[in-house]
């Protein structure tokens, strides 16, 4: 158990402000490596903001200020010498709405690897097949790699986005409500996929679907108004929550 929960990402006393508004309040948690951590909470509780703090996507928002420490393998990712580009290669991200580029399926997957230096065509071919297989999309698209990513169904588009993230071989995958725009069948595929992915990488998923969190995650963090109310093993949090507010939320009395 000790070996399995070796920490990769650690948040210590993290507070995030948008101008004067504090959206994350003194959150501390450790993301267990090669497990799925779910962040749940009602709309506006700061789930996405917390997720985006991990790959510094909040940096693009004017007036954003972060306090506390976010570290990866013991290194402060907001440190002065940190290369954000290199950081984001190690931490992939999948968004709420599938957002493949208006390019071919092949070019979508190779976009990331090509950014980071010259790669031979053969290597790219291998990488495309590997990433699409990992994202459980290969069999559906192997005969039309040159058609546009936008021609795929919503669920396929989202798996293409996952493949695109996997192609840069990240150690962590952040997923921001990855199934909220999808139908139940496509959602089930994404959930299966997450369970497979955690063999190789650490997954963090933001969701407001509690069943989803209960189904797929190993640990769950419950966030309310920017405050981390409870963070525990998923089974425990859903069956025997320690905090009254968690109980209210998961039993549907709130949010």
């Amino acid at each position, binding site marked *: 158990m000790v070996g399995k929960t070796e920490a990769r990402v650690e948040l210590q006393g993290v507070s995030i402000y948008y101008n004067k508004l504090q959206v994350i309040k003194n959150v501390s948690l450790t993301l267990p490596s090669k497990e799925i951590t779910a962040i749940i909470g009602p709309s506006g509780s700061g789930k996405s903001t917390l997720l985006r703090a991990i790959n510094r996507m909040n940096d693009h928002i004017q007036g954003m200020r972060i306090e506390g420490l976010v570290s990866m393998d013991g290194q402060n990712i907001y440190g002065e010498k940190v290369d954000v580009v290199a950081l*984001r290669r190690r931490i992939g991200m999948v968004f709420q709405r599938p*957002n493949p*580029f*208006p390019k071919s399926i092949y070019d979508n997957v190779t976009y990331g690897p090509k*950014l980071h230096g010259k790669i031979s065509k053969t290597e790219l071919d291998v990488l495309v097949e590997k990433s699409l297989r990992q994202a459980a999309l290969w069999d559906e698209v192997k005969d039309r790699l040159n058609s546009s990513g*936008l021609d795929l169904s919503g669920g396929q588009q989202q798996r293409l*986005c996952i493949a695109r*993230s996997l192609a840069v071989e990240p150690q962590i995958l952040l997923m921001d409500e990855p199934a909220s725009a999808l139908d139940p069948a496509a959602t089930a595929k994404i959930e299966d996929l997450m369970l497979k992915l955690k063999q190789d990488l650490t997954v963090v998923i933001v969701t407001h679907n509690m069943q989803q969190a209960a189904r797929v995650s190993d640990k769950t963090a419950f966030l309310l108004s920017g405050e981390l109310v409870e963070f525990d093993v998923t089974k425990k949090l859903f069956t025997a929550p320690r905090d009254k507010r968690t109980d209210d939320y998961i039993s549907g009395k709130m949010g």
Partner: protein
Amino acid sequence: MPTQQKLVIAAGYTVLILTVAIFVFLAHQSWPFFAEHADLSFVTGDRWLPVSFPPSFQIKGFLVSTLLITGVAVLLGCPLGVISAISLAELLPRQVGLVVRSLFEITAGIPSVVFGFLGLRIVAPYVARVFGLQTGLTGFSAGVVLSVMILPTLVSLAEEALRAVPREYAQASYALGATRWQTIWRVIVPSARGGIAAAILLAIGRAIGETMTVLMVAGGRLTTPGSIFDPMRTLTALIASEVKNAARNSAQYHALFAAGLVLFVITFAVNALAAAVIVGGKGRRSS
């Protein structure tokens, strides 16, 4: 159907009717000319001699001049315009962007005769000095002035196309570890290429139709120019300079209308192509 609705629909058709009416009018007025000269020498010949006996009306020189000057305007203006649009949409701070954008809008409002004057007094002498020409009143000088005049159209339309690119694309690119520069050139600009192409085509249409500036700056030689550094006269300048002297219903009068019809067809084709690019691009995005 309520009356208001009928009126609005009628207003929509007005543009269509006007366009057709202009075409019919031009065709009708130039008909006597084409009836007499039912061959291609009108556009392939080089002799425009309206007061000779017999007169000759051939417009190859003006056509070539129009193409050359438009070419210079587009080659100089498009890179500058597209890069300005990228800068406005993606790089400049908001406040600076507002200032730059309003400067472009002011530029769009400057009468073309003022541009002609600037071309005459500043650009032409400078071009003559730099290239060692006898006169700076050349197609090149006119193209230089036109390249500035097409910027407002080009920049505002291209910027609009760039801003219409969904932010999600940029987000995805950043999340994959792309820099801002890589995101602009590899995702945003390629995603907007349909709209940018349409902007360039509309700017070309604008350049082809410009009259006063080229009349003042391009010089006035009536034959086919041998080089871009020759004085020349465009189709628009030809019509503007001669129509007031042509006797109504004379051969010259009808020939000028025929030249106008050719000009109409060219600009119509360019604008239709731009519209097709815009419609095509939208259809693909929503699929």
